[in-house]
C-alpha cells in the first residue's frame, strides 16, 4: 500500500513516500525516519509528491518526531504535497508545527537555513 524509498543528496537523506499511509502502513514511515535518524543524517527531507493519502496514523508519526528533531537539531522537512494531502495537515493545525516546503529545492534551502 505504501512504498518507501531513500536516497541521499548533498548530505540530506530524502525519504520518498509513495502511495497511501493509514493505520496499517504508518509503521513503515516510522521505521524509515527512525532509520534515517539512527544512521546519523543531519537533514531529513520527506518527498510527499507521490503521497496520495494520509490518515491520522501517518500524521501522528510526523508529530511524534517534532520534539526529537528539535532536541537533536535535525531539520525534518516535508515537501511536494498534493493539495488533498496538505489539507489533512491543515485541518488540525499540524501544518504550523511542521516544516513544509513546496518543492525539493525550497526544502533543501530551508534545511540549510535551519542547520546553521
Amino acid at each position, binding site marked *: *500500500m505504501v512504498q518507501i524509498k531513500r536516497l541521499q543528496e548533498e548530505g540530506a537523506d530524502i525519504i520518498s513516500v509513495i502511495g*497511501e499511509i*493509514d*493505520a*496499517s502502513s*504508518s509503521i513503515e514511515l*516510522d521505521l524509515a525516519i527512525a532509520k534515517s535518524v539512527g544512521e546519523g543524517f543531519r537533514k531529513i527531507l520527506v518527498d510527499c509528491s507521490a503521497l496520495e*493519502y494520509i*490518515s*491520522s*496514523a501517518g*500524521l*501522528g*508519526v510526523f*508529530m*511524534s*518526531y*517534532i*520534539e*526529537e528533531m528539535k532536541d537533536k537539531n535535525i531539520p525534518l522537512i516535508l515537501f511536494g504535497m498534493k*493539495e*488533498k494531502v496538505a*489539507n*489533512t495537515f491543515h*485541518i*488540525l*493545525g*499540524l501544518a504550523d*508545527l511542521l516544516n513544509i516546503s513546496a518543492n525539493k529545492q525550497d526544502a533543501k534551502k530551508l534545511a540549510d537555513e535551519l542547520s546553521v
Partner: protein
Amino acid sequence: MNYQYNIGCSLANLKGIREFVRSSLKDQDVPEIEMSAIVLALDEMCSNLMIHAHHCNPEHMLELHIEIPRTGKFIFEIIDDGSVFDINEFHQPELDRLVNQKRKGGLGIRLVKAIMDDVEYLKRANKNVCRLTKVVKPE
C-alpha cells in the same frame, strides 16, 4: 440512494472502505477536498472501532451504510456489535501536549470532529450505530 458495505475488522481492509466511500459519492458533485475529508473521517472511525472495540479481529464485522440525500445532508452509519466507543465522551488533550509527549495517537478523533457536522450514537436491533452527518454544498 443507499449503499452498504460489510467488512471484517482488519486494518488491511481500510483501503476497501476508502474506495467504497469514494465510489458511493462519485456522482454527487462533492468537491474533491470535501470528498477526501469525508473518506478520511470514515477511515478514522472504522480504524478506531477495529482497533479499540474489535482488537483487529477479522472475523468481527462492520457494516457501513451511506445514505445519499437530495438535500446535500449525507448520512454515514457504521454498525457493529462491539463495545461502544463514543468519541463525544473522549477527552482531547491539547495538540501542544501531544507534541511534547511525542505521542503518535490522539489525532483521529480530532479529525472526525473537525470534518463531520455531527456524530451520534444509537441502538438499532441490538446493535451499535454510529451515525455521522455531513452537509455538502455541491460544486
